[in-house]
């Protein structure tokens, strides 16, 4: 029987509580896992492992948190995403709300895109069998 969004939210909440040491009532849909819940890059790895265990799915490196976008100057120049980089983000994160980032495409603003709700939508998409978008290869 497929999980409801609430059931997914409960498991995501538990994974974040365990990974970040925050209280359950801090994990609301609009909470940003960086600015609000205190996650930093090593925590993102922990979160992915816990989600894999909780939902019995595989989340390949770069699927949930596309750190591949930070690997090449084709996507990032002087701390800002290039148009190519923004396209890459849109492709890799169809479930994310990139509105604010598109207006001010600095790398330091990327973390704000990762909200609890974004993670729930990602898991929902994966559980319903959605294909992972293929990463583009840098030219």
């Amino acid at each position, binding site marked *: 029987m497929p999980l409801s969004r609430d059931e997914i939210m409960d498991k995501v909440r538990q994974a974040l509580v365990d990974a970040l*040491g925050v209280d359950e009532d801090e994990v609301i849909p609009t909470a940003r896992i*960086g*600015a609000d819940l*205190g996650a*930093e*890059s*090593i*925590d993102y790895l922990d979160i992915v492992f816990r989600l894999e265990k909780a939902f019995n799915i595989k989340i390949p490196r770069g699927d949930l948190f596309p*750190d591949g976008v*930070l*690997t*090449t*100057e084709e*996507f*990032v120049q002087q*701390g800002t995403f290039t148009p190519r980089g923004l396209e890459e983000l849109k492709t890799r994160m169809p479930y994310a709300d990139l509105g604010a980032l598109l207006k001010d495409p600095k*790398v*330091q603003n990327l973390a704000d895109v990762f909200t609890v709700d974004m993670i729930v939508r990602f898991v929902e998409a994966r559980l319903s069998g959605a294909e992972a978008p293929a990463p583009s290869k840098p030219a």
Partner: protein
Amino acid sequence: MKFFLVDRILELEPPKRIVAVKNVSLAEEYLADHFPAYPVLPGVMMVEALVQTAAWLVRASTDFEKNLILLKEAQNVRYGTFVKPGMQLVMEVTALEIGPDASRFKATGRCEGQVALQAKLTLQHLNVADADPYGGAEADALLRPFWRERFRLVGGPAALAAAAGREGT
């Protein structure tokens, strides 16, 4: 690679307070992966830098009594701005309590006037002999002068003298 993350102690008022700095350099190996097109000091290294700053305050306040000063718990860690190569992380640590075996601190790291991170830290202190009654004493005999020399390298005695000088005025 040895992770000595405190480059210099600027202010030192044992047992209350310490201010130290860590300069971030493109030459730090972990930046190559974090991230290739956007190198920034990893958050865990920022926490470790605060821990090492607090550890200096412990050493200065306890006359280098314990050779191993380790992070026991980090709480309420909150990150702010990124720290990039060419920038300096200024770490200010205030002691809430320094005991013989443990200590607690409030710590803030700032970069160019903005808060890069804040944390509450609990450290534990021990000598190698406490953990290893057989080989420990030998290790401790080597470590104690090592930490005193390191203290000199990072400007500890000078910071103490400056504080004493200010007190006198």
